[in-house]
């Protein structure tokens, strides 16, 4: 997947656990795990907004586009 979700990094910075984040943004721990492990196909803006609000960060702090991953896939 070319889009990487850096939730673990932000959770560590804010000293927050996954379960707590899931509860505060209103999704299940399982869904948060899907997001963290890169298995999610899409994320709703409403969910992204909630994550940014709770973690006090920008979308760019959580989402990263990996060009090298794309080039490796192409080769």
């Amino acid at each position: 997947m070319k889009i990487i979700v850096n939730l673990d990094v932000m959770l560590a910075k804010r000293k927050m656990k996954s379960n707590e984040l899931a509860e505060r943004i209103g999704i299940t721990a399982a869904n948060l795990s899907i997001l963290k492990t890169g298995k999610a196909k899409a994320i709703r803006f409403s969910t992204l907004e909630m994550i940014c609000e709770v973690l006090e960060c920008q979308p760019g702090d959580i989402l990263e586009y990996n060009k090298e991953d794309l080039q490796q896939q192409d080769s």
Partner: protein
Amino acid sequence: MGTTKLLTLLIDIFYFGVILVSSIVLIGFLYMFFFEPENALIYSNIDLRNMTSLDFALVLCSIIATILFIASLFYLRKSIYRISKNDLYHIDTAKYLKLAGWCIILYSLIKNIGEYIKLYLEEGTITIISLDFKGFNSFWFIMILGLFFQLIATVLENGRKLKLENDLTI
């Protein structure tokens, strides 16, 4: 009784009924073949002990068509079973419907070949295929039915992919 359960029951009755009738016919024929061979005739005039190549082809077409018909009912039963378990978007549902569709298409082709052979044996000529709708047993109707099942299978498969994508949307 729900619609799905009624449909499941009807298909089950049809499926086991066809198997039962086919088995009785086969057992009856085998009995006559071994114990009353002079009466063991297929289509009233084909003697299994003295068959031409066309007779053999006709018998083979009939057997294969029957097997394909039973196979199509078998796969239909399997997909209806999945649907009755509220598992419409399971990967097997579309797969079994597609297989049922292929069995129906092949059944219509082979049955039609058998009918042409039978016509040739009886009348000595072959009539060019026509587009007339001769009832629900006609080649075109059965072929379209098979294609329809293929279409439904494709729709279900696409629906399954959309559902999977939706399930993985957080």
